[in-house]
């Protein structure tokens, strides 16, 4: 084949590749946030690789902990014993409190359901282009994870919600700090309601739709999920107000620092059942 034809053929293939991707971009307009089958396919193929690398790291990490880091174990054990003692006391008090409200049989059912509602997962990956948008966890549809389940950290603070793509063994979690995320919250002290949305860039959130005439909300107030959005259960701690700006617009500009810590976000729990429906 003459050289010029070879060159032309390469240019045509290149143009074809670009065209395919432009079609993929434009296909998302009718799909909205729902990923295409092609995108899901790539996620399904590559997420086991990510899971395997994570498992390898965990093995190396546990070997390190077992053989090299043993001298800290005694100290850690003492800390855990203290925490366990406090948790047991708290558990007894809560059980006693609940027993006054419910009979024993119903209480047993509630506690069993409560335990089943938490699905612990490890964070195995971060969003490839923006760490404040999403994370990948090592639990998927085979573990009972579905689209739209709330996710909390080890302190019980809100992290985000599961979002498609959810594969057999892994799932994507949309973080609170994603600019497309929206959570219905209220302030703990003054009961001011609003929508918590991420800024998508700096790990902070905005509390939206609080009217400029509302003088109640104060800096430092804690924000708690209200459950109105039917996605996140009520009562989860989401963050704290760090600044309030009132200008000429209809709504206040409220900056919120979410509780989720990006540096320590290694384990999370997926709420497979809405906790507020148990009681």
């Amino acid at each position, binding site marked *: 084949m003459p050289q010029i034809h070879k060159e032309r053929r390469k240019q045509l293939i290149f143009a074809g590749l670009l065209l395919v*991707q432009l079609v993929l971009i434009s296909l998302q307009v009718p799909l909205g946030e729902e990923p295409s089958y092609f995108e899901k396919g790539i996620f399904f193929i590559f997420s086991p690789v990510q899971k395997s690398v994570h498992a390898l790291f965990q093995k190396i990490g546990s070997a390190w902990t077992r053989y090299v880091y043993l001298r800290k174990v005694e100290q850690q054990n003492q800390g855990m014993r203290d925490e366990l003692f406090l948790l047991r006391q708290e558990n007894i008090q809560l059980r006693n409190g609940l027993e006054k409200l419910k009979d024993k049989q119903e209480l047993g059912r509630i506690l069993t359901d409560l335990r089943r509602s938490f699905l612990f997962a490890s964070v195995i990956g971060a*969003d490839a282009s923006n*760490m404040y948008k999403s994370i990948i966890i090592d639990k998927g549809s085979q573990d009972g994870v579905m689209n739209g389940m709330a996710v909390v950290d080890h302190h019980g603070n809100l992290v985000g919600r599961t979002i498609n793509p959810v594969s057999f063994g892994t799932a994507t979690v949309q973080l609170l700090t994603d600019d497309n995320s929206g959570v219905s919250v209220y302030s703990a002290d003054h009961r001011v309601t609003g929508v918590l949305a991420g800024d998508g860039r700096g790990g902070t959130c905005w509390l939206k739709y609080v009217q400029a005439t509302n003088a109640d909300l104060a800096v430092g107030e804690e924000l708690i999920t209200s459950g109105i959005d039917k996605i996140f259960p009520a009562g989860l701690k989401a963050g704290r107000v760090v600044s309030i700006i009132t200008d000429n617009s209809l709504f206040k500009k409220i900056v919120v620092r979410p509780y989720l810590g990006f540096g320590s976000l290694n384990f999370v729990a997926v709420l497979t059942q809405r906790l507020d429906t148990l009681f």
Partner: protein
Amino acid sequence: MRDFMEAAAGVLIAFFFYTVFRKISVSLIESLNVFTLAVILIGLLKGEMAGAFMGMACGLIVDSFSLGVFGISGVANTLAGYLTGVISRKVNVVPFLRSLVFIGIMAGLELAVWMGLSALIFGEGIYLGKGLIFLQPVLTAIVGSVLFLRIRKFKAKHEK
């Protein structure tokens, strides 16, 4: 077939390092784009067609593991891979300093296209990783030129 296997291995290696870097520090994946690095290296070593296909594969993986618009990284990397192959055939980029500058320019181009498309589609500011993202072309150039030199030496040794 061998070229395809090498490109597939390149994709897997890039994905492996992306996962490992995430485990070490998120700042690492913000300051060194291993996918772009793999695309440029394949473009340099295998030509524009391999570069373009590799760019498409790596870019779409990045897009699948991100909540952004699916296809943006694909376009940016396909362009980077293709242009790397075309230019490196016409200009001698084998000497270390030249390859350093050339890889830096190509990585910068990929970043500029990605940022341009993101800004165009999202219509507002994009995430810059506290400025770390601007380190990508520099780090890609340094790591890429060293790897390019090593691979060439390794190949020359084995061909002898």
